[in-house]
């Protein structure tokens, strides 16, 4: 590709967005800094969630193990799920959205920069609030799905499920704010010529994901408020003794929970769709079909929630409806996989670490899709539901799909983010240890489930004959953990590396590669005008002289503010203090929030 790198000299006085002391980071409204904050926080929580996973696998390595108590085990598997979904998966997607969307559509920031900061601080404080439960020995222990009526005050008398309901409520607030922000940004802030059907596929998937976030998370919020009211003030929404119905919680939770699955996987689809064309040196095959199938997956994703409930006893008609609906989703998903293969077909494939991750994600996601069809078929879901078969399935989708894609994203955009490269050599080792470790962990779990081991058990009888398979799975988990550690080693090594990244080191086609690596705080010296879907392949010279050349436009970048952080503390307090023994405690948080909001609103930017 004619990448025309370095045809435009870096102007003197260029300063990357990384510039700034700790105060700048605490008050920042720069989408790239907030993206970094989200990313670092998400990785921090990933390590905690991963640690829980390693303890879980160690406990299950042999039958009738007594490493951890039932009480602690139940807290660990609950927090592993909550962490990987709410504190790693979603925030990591949001980290990438933050860093990439404005750069990909030619904007200088997101639509609401301070709202963006507020959303980050609420997320971080919410995550720390949830983990503070370990300090009082009462981490959530009812599963990430928190089924009623086990979650009621009667059957969960401790603070555990209060941390769950209030913690998730806090995190939901942050997510909804983020979703609104990204939708507004994508609709309103595209550079001239960046039509919707010219947007990079990653931004398209972020767009669909954001709609899912602002529609699905409120359902969870309502359900969580009902749960909080039940626990705090004795309402009876889910209390069968008083005529409430615990099954209603399952419906509400999964009406949120299934779109949530697509919230986690669509960003991964976006990442794969960026990496494959770059390293195949070919445009994405069937761009519009890829967009439409992503939108379709998002839409149908709303009509399949009850496939999580085939054993609940909904009746044959509902079971049949949700069986067929779920299978239909396989069609647009399959189309995506075929189009990825077609993108590579006839290309010049370069097996960089990023490319390895993208290919690995396609290979394993396909596997997870196939086992998904197996329990979409509700009669055999009756055997597979709540067993390790399901654990294997969704880890193939979410680890194989999301986590591998996210590591691919790190290797791919690292030069853009930092101006340096992650080592390809360590990267290759990391890829193979994750890829093999992951498969060794989760492949045997299909059989562990089909041979009769349910999920969420802190122990299992040696009579089941499943000790060997479980041991294999545990060995794989350790190999996976090594893979994650290798990544952190690579990050440290790259800081010492002298090799500097040019603006477009991979010869990629999308707009973010036109600006400096790392970009300046204002992203683009002049707003580019686009005429094609692959600007850096078709109009590189014009784009680069606009975005990196001498600055002719005048623009105003918003200044930092303490009020997002201040207001976030108030919102988190207002919700967290529902746990306090006195009814007026949340009012303290509300008052704090009110002060924050007023100052937030009247501060000049």
């Amino acid at each position: 590709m004619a990448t025309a790198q370095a045809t435009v000299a870096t102007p003197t006085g260029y300063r990357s967005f990384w510039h700034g002391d700790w105060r700048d980071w605490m008050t920042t409204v720069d989408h790239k800094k907030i993206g970094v904050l989200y990313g670092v926080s998400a990785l921090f929580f990933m390590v905690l969630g991963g640690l829980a996973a390693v303890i879980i696998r160690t406990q299950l390595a042999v039958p009738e193990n007594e490493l951890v108590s039932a009480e602690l085990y139940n807290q660990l598997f609950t927090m592993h799920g909550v962490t990987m979904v709410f504190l790693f998966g979603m925030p990591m997607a949001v980290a990438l959205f933050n860093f990439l969307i404005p750069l990909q559509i030619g904007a200088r920031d997101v639509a609401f920069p301070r709202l963006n900061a507020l959303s980050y601080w609420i997320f971080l404080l919410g995550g720390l609030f949830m983990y503070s439960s370990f300090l009082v020995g009462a981490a959530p222990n009812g599963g990430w799905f928190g089924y009623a009526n086990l979650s009621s005050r009667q059957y969960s008398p401790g603070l555990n499920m209060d941390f769950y309901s209030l913690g998730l409520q806090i995190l939901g607030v942050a997510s909804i704010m983020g979703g609104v922000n990204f939708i507004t940004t994508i609709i309103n802030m595209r550079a001239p010529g960046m039509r919707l059907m010219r947007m990079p596929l990653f931004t398209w998937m972020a767009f669909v994901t954001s709609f899912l976030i602002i529609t699905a998370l409120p359902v969870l919020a309502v359900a969580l408020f009902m749960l909080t009211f039940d626990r705090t003030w004795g309402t009876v929404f889910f209390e069968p003794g008083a005529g409430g119905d615990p099954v209603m919680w399952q419906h509400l939770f999964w009406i949120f929970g299934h779109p949530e699955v697509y919230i986690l996987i669509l960003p991964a689809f976006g990442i794969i769709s960026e990496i494959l064309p770059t390293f195949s040196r070919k445009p994405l095959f069937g761009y519009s079909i890829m967009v439409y199938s992503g939108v379709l997956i998002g839409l149908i994703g709303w009509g399949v929630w009850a496939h999580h409930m085939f054993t609940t006893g909904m009746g044959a008609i509902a079971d049949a409806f949700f069986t067929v609906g779920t299978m239909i989703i396989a069609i647009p998903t399959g189309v995506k996989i075929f189009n990825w293969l077609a993108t590579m077909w006839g290309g010049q494939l370069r097996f960089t670490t990023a490319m390895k991750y993208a290919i690995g994600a396609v290979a394993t996601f396909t596997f997870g899709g196939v086992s998904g069809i197996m329990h979409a078929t509700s009669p055999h879901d009756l055997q597979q539901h709540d067993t390790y078969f399901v654990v294997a399935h969704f880890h193939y989708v979410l680890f194989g799909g999301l986590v591998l894609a996210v590591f691919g994203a790190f290797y791919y955009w690292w030069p853009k983010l930092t101006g340096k490269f992650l080592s390809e050599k360590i990267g290759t080792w990391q890829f193979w240890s994750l890829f093999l470790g992951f498969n060794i962990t989760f492949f045997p779990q299909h059989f562990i489930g089909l041979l009769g081991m349910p999920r969420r058990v802190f122990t299992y009888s040696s009579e089941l004959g499943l000790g060997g398979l479980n041991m294999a799975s545990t060995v794989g988990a350790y190999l996976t953990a090594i893979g994650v550690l290798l990544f952190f080693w690579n990050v440290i090594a790259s800081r010492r590396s002298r090799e500097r990244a040019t603006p477009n080191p991979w010869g990629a086609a999308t707009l973010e590669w036109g600006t400096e690596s790392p970009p300046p705080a204002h992203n683009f010296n002049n707003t580019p005008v686009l005429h094609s879907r692959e600007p850096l392949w078709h109009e590189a010279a014009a784009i680069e002289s606009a975005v990196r050349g001498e600055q002719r436009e005048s623009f105003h970048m918003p200044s930092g503010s303490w009020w997002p952080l201040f207001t976030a503390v108030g919102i988190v307090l207002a919700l967290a203090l529902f746990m306090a023994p006195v009814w007026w405690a949340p009012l303290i948080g509300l008052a704090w929030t009110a002060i924050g909001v007023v100052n937030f609103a009247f501060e000049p930017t």
Partner: protein
Amino acid sequence: MTGNRKLLHSGALGSLLVVSVLLLSACSGEYPQTTFQPVTEFGELINGLFYNTTAWTMAILLIVEAVLIYILIRFRARPDAPEPKHIHGNTLVEIVWTVIPAIIVAVIAIPAVGAIFELQRPQDEGAFVVDVIGHQWWWEFRYPELEGVVTANEMHVPVGRMVYLNMRSADVIHSFWIPRIGGKRDVNPVPATREAEPERLNHLQFRVNQAGAYDGQCAEYCGDSHAIMRMRVIAHEPGDFQRWVQAYRTLAPAPTDSLAAHGMQVFMRSPCIACHSISGTSAIGRIGPNLTFMGDRWSVGAGAEENSVDALARWIISPPAMKPGARMPGTRTEGGGMPPTGLSEQDVRAIAAYLFSLRADAVPAAAPLPPGDTTDAPAGTGISMQTHDAD
């Protein structure tokens, strides 16, 4: 360099295939909770459907992964290769690979929908009804047809007759799952206002074709000891089933062993009888598990430990030590809103000996049992039946 990596990649996928073949062959081993060896039409229907779905989806999977590997080898970058052609798409190809998966989905979905309705058909005429009640963390089985017969953690059914389960929970949601019998079904607490509506109960219907003991356990996370909420379905030949019922309804003979006899005395005047029943005695408590034929059970505490006098004694001393969260009071610990029992160690041993002596074959039967059967079934009912190989 790329050639090396490519080899590594295909090698990894190849070894995955080998592993999967090995694992599949491992399925013929001894797994008491396997889903692959059903003993009912219910389980066989599911299994047949599973093989159909698996065949289609595995075919797709293998084709996709094979094409992927081919692409990785065939289209790897070569130093002097020309720029690849920029193909943006091909409508015909894209239509084809939308329509073909749609057809495959239909092929999978049609028999699946048929099976859904087949598996949830209404109660058969003349079915043997069992009321299943889930408790944190044990199972209660009541038999409306056999008045007064109640068992805990072991369900007794006749072979060859349709069994129909009415299931509900006394506390939180559980799930009834005996893999060799078939799929699971949740055991939900029924809203108080709708207790009278039978359609609010969940059901399973199956006919066991083969006498034996089939293991299962709760499949819906239900709190601390969800992992120790196991159960066993014991399917008797019809004649044996009749004898078992008869034994259940006969006045239990006083234990001959002096320690057990002392244990019976202690049991009958201690707080035990507030919660537990033993058929044919004055113990008629209904809160805890029914202890009739406790000596025949395979385990103590719904799978907490293998049944023995020693395990029973340790259970009576401190249930939560063997099973986290267990509600029964111990000798020094309170539980379930009851004070400690304060029983002496001697009394505990005596009660354990008494409970272990409670066996169906100790009851004088109208029709004598064939000799030798009891030795086959140390952990079963003591009545002619195939014991589980894993015992």
